């Protein structure tokens, strides 16, 4: 059985949740509403994050992001893919990696210029 404590971030109330996982069954306590259960289950089963970073180009580093959240466990792998790039001039919205590591997310340029 796995037990974890976390603070719910769905609203300013910030409930202190205790989440236990026993096989496939996930139990949440300490929540004041249903959103806490949704939050805890996602955090425990497949936490997803948007990765934002910067990419090297001939005109310096430029901000970029994944267009969708990627599995938290893949953040550092996605960073390595971004780090590999050496690009020429880029512009806002350019797709610089398509479907990065099969996550279905693209890496696009977000720099404001």
């Amino acid at each position: 059985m796995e037990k974890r404590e976390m603070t719910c971030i769905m609203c300013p109330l910030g409930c202190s949740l205790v989440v236990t996982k026993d096989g496939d069954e996930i139990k949440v306590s300490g929540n004041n509403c249903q959103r806490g259960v949704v939050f805890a289950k996602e955090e425990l089963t497949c936490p997803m994050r948007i990765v934002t970073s910067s990419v090297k180009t001939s005109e310096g580093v430029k901000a970029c992001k994944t267009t969708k959240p990627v599995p938290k466990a893949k953040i550092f792998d996605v960073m390595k893919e971004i780090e590999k790039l050496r690009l020429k001039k880029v512009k806002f919205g350019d797709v610089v990696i398509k479907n990065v590591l099969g996550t279905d997310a693209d890496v696009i340029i977000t720099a404001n210029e």
Partner: protein
Amino acid sequence: MKTEVLVVGGGPAGMSAALSASENESKVIIVERDKVLGGILNQCIHNGFGLHYFQEELTGPEFAHRFRKMVEKDKNIKVLTNTLVTEFKDKKVVVMGENGKQEITFDACIIAMGCRERTAGNISLTGTRPMGILTAGSAQKMVNIDGKMPGKDIVILGSGDIGLIMARRLTLEGAKVHAVLEINPTSSGLRRNILQCLDDFNIPLLYNTTIFDVVGKDRVEGVYYGQVDEHYNRIESTKKFLKCDTVILSVGLIPEMQNLQDISVNSKTNGAFVNEHYQTNKPWMFSCGNILHVHDLVDNVALEGKQVGLFASLYAQGKLNEGNLIKVSHSADFAYVLPYTLFEGDEQTEVKFRLKNKIVRKWIVAESQGKEIAKKFVLAGVPGEMMTFAFPKKDVKKEIVFKVV
């Protein structure tokens, strides 16, 4: 040069104010010291912006980009980049820019220059002063704009949002962030950032803890740190050494008011003392965004800019009407309630406030001359998140008091 409305600062507050003044048919000039509009958003490459304003999650540069495109399309707005205001005079400013020094006269002016970070000097950080001590915003610019790393072994002092964001950013770029030290028992940062920037990477956040001494001659070699009691006195028995080459400070923000010595300031926000029209003690000068009070969300900065752009435009056109003055005050539950005065009238109004401590399941009540005007239920409110309260002014006379019950 001459304009109807001058906006100083081309960040989210300034751009939003300029667009709103233009929509009300004013000619506008924006003066921006950087080479591109956007302000601090350009270096805030993380996501989480725009959820309220655009109903969509954007990064800082993307949020800035949307506003910049609207400003560039707007025929009423002229933008002077690479231009710095060097002096504020009566209804005119002196600027230094690409065409040298010149004066701009105006009917109304909006100050939207944002805020500045507290430095090692501001918090009386003790120990030596070697290379490797910098503010979170400077570190952010180094990494995200200049593409350079400030160091490899990092300690972050203070748990403000930019510090938390930089803990993650530096970790992703290969540095080791050993700890975030917070002198207070709670963090001023958003809970989402504590989860996604620290917990995700197992970076410890130590409360009631601060740096006792910075060690190092040419470069930071480490810090002595330890716990403080409830009066912030050091508990010497808890003192430990931590080896690091960089100390990053995220210890608060101060509105950028130092060139505006004639403007009355509110002692809680350090921003201008404004009335319901966001007008300062110089009636032609308006204020919005982080130079007025430090916001936690850019969405609220943009909304404030929109409000204030209209007020400044109406003033420039001689159409801004005032009623009798209402004095705003509040109980000790609030850090501040803004604006600091209102005008009597029939319309709806809105105040913005920050709480001193967390409240759960309470009412915010507005009273005027002993009579309840309006109340609002708050499920939960924390000091880190600015809140608003809208109510009709019809029955408000002379004074209004805000309380938590």
